[in-house]
């Protein structure tokens, strides 16, 4: 039998029907919905007189618009001050109530960012197809699932038919072998990959992450990596199933139990690329070459090691790229050749579907323990990714560490990653952010985002500017 990639296997097992024109009808096992990209889909469904095909496959939660202060959240829906945001969250509630869709509402202790609660509850499992009207759905690929974002028309399509009309993507492998140095985290790995292949480097491909580094990585770390596959242009990122995957899934609320569990594990063991499987493209990085990363520009590919300098556009030979660098430096208020470490920061955001799982909280707390946020930093906040992450962090006393260090400890939500709620940057402010996009205005009008790992964000909070967390932990803050 011809060797298959992980993506080939996931695709093949979900083909309902292949069509003459090269497209296929693909079955969707799990549909996650949130308040921003679903209202128009429900409206479309109603206008056409249709009903959801399989209501019990859908999981909903509000995350983008929810406020994150304790006071606001204590009031539930009434705590949403912005009337437009309130309507959107209320619309999700109404739609879920009308159709009988399971929803973790705003004050449910299980509420959280969609991409965090999917794996955490076991709603998303290895071997599944998972979609959500949100490009960071690729996070679930860490489970050995085919997971990707869709637009609202496709949300409606999946609601109505449990299927998508798709064309098979190409296969791409990013292999990272070797051992990561201390202080180098999954976030640094994915930023380094994006820096190497570019923000369109994996367009048209399903992206598998392979090699020692991912085999030795925790599930939380794999989720951080797969989460940002889209920032390299890939709709779907994925990692093969191994013991780490299976131990992560075991016992979760919606994970299979008893005999089903044994059958499921037996089938999941096959969720890896076969030896000799053909990839259309392979990119290789050495773990030892990867250093803690900081983005300096307005695209995730505009990133470099913390010890480097802001690039000089004059050195760029490609005219379009040169233009892009000039524009980015102007927006970011940076000079060519300026050391990354000289960039002063105004705010710190530790959170988002990229880096708001328990390991991220621990990594930040480890750096912050016994230290204080610099006086020059206006605000530093930690926003856990879900109610479960929050509870776990509090059980471990991490919230105390954050509060004692002068950070705010918030309620779960997307928060300042995209600033749809009240958490946002002011114009011109620099932010050390553990989120995924440094686009212009992303975290607030005129705001300047620098993408970093949780440990690097914590170190920057203390120093007031970027520092190499490796020197920092050794006790020599720059």
């Amino acid at each position, binding site marked *: 039998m011809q060797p298959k990639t992980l993506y080939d296997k996931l695709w093949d097992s979900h083909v309902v029907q292949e069509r003459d024109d090269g497209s296929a009808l693909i079955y969707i096992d799990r549909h996650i919905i949130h308040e921003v990209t679903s209202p128009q889909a429900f409206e479309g469904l109603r206008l056409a007189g249709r009903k959801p095909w399989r209501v019990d496959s859908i999981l909903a939660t509000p995350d983008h618009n929810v406020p994150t202060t304790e006071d606001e959240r204590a009031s539930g829906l009434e705590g949403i001050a912005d009337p437009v945001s309130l309507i959107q969250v209320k619309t999700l509630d109404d739609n879920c109530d009308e159709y009988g869709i399971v929803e973790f509402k705003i004050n449910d202790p299980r509420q959280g960012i969609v991409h965090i609660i999917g794996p955490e509850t076991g709603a998303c499992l290895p071997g599944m197809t998972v979609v959500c009207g949100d490009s960071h759905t690729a996070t679930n690929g860490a489970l050995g699932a085919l997971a990707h974002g869709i637009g609202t028309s496709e949300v409606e399509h999946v609601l109505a038919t449990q299927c998508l009309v798709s064309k098979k993507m190409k296969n791409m492998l990013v292999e990272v072998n070797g051992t990561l140095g201390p202080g180098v985290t999954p976030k640094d790995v994915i930023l380094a990959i994006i820096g190497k292949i570019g923000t369109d480097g994996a*367009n048209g491909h399903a992206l598998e992450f392979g090699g020692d580094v991912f085999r030795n990585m925790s599930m939380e770390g794999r989720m951080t990596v797969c989460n940002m596959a889209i920032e390299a242009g890939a709709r779907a990122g994925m990692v093969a199933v191994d013991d780490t995957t299976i131990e992560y899934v075991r016992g979760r609320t919606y994970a299979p139990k008893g005999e089903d569990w044994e059958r499921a594990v037996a089938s999941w063991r096959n969720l890896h690329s076969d030896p000799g499987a053909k990839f259309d493209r392979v990119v290789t990085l050495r773990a030892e070459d990867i250093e803690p990363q900081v983005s300096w520009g307005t695209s995730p590919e505009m990133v470099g090691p913390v010890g480097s300098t802001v690039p000089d556009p004059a050195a760029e030979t490609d005219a379009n790229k040169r233009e892009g660098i000039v524009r980015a430096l102007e927006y970011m208020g940076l000079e060519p050749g300026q050391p990354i470490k000289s960039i002063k920061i105004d705010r710190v955001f530790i959170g988002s579907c990229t880096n708001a799982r328990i390991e991220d909280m621990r990594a930040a707390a480890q750096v912050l323990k016994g230290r204080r946020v610099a006086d020059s930093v206006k605000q530093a906040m930690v926003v856990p990714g879900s109610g479960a992450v929050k509870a776990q962090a509090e059980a471990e006393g991490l919230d105390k560490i954050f509060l004692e260090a002068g950070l705010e400890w918030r309620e779960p939500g997307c928060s300042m990653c995209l600033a749809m709620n009240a958490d946002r940057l002011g114009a011109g402010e620099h932010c050390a952010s553990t989120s995924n996009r440094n686009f212009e205005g992303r975290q607030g009008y005129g705001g300047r985002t620098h993408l970093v790992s949780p440990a690097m964000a914590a170190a920057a909070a203390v120093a007031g500017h970027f520092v190499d967390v490796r020197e920092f932990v050794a006790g020599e803050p720059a």
Partner: protein
Amino acid sequence: MKSFTQHTGLVAPMDRANVDTDMIIPKQFLKSIKRTGFGKNLFDELRYLDEGQPDQDCTGRPLNPDFELNHSRYQGASILLTRSNFGCGSSREHAPWALDDYGFRCLIAPSFADIFYNNCFKNGILPVVLSEEEVETLFQQMYANEGYQLAVDLAAQTVTTPDGQVFTFEIDNFRKHCLLEGLDDIGLTLEQSDAIKAYEARRREEAPWLFDALTP
């Protein structure tokens, strides 16, 4: 779904690579629960000099005189000429909704981000991929000629310049067919209900846990 067959229209530039969907339609406008009305906020942060708010009347807002879509020569444009990886980032369909609402029927670039590309077809917008060199040629011609128009023919898969130069483009058959006919793809899929049910029955035997109902 809206169809696209042939279109001739004024061409406007968005002369930068990696235009992301946050730039096409910033997040504050995503709070709307409607599909329409996004056109006035298309490229909001580039187009205006102040920060836009949802449901705001934009007629009195200060326009950015440096932004090309604000120039009089590009008013009424329906074809957007841009650079590689247009539409990267978020999957928000509000991006094609905003382009459509503004009046764009066709986008031309060397490449598009995957999710955005797919979303265009659901909204009757044709994204045309031409080579870097061809796009550069079109940019030069457009800048040199005020009132520059292109004729786009989906059935023939061609873009024709005012002086008769013809560029051909590739497109998937299934997407082409749906767009030409303006087909309701949900209706088409539902015609295959029996195949979906047969798949579910087979799959339920192989992997019953995939059909466990999520419970509150």
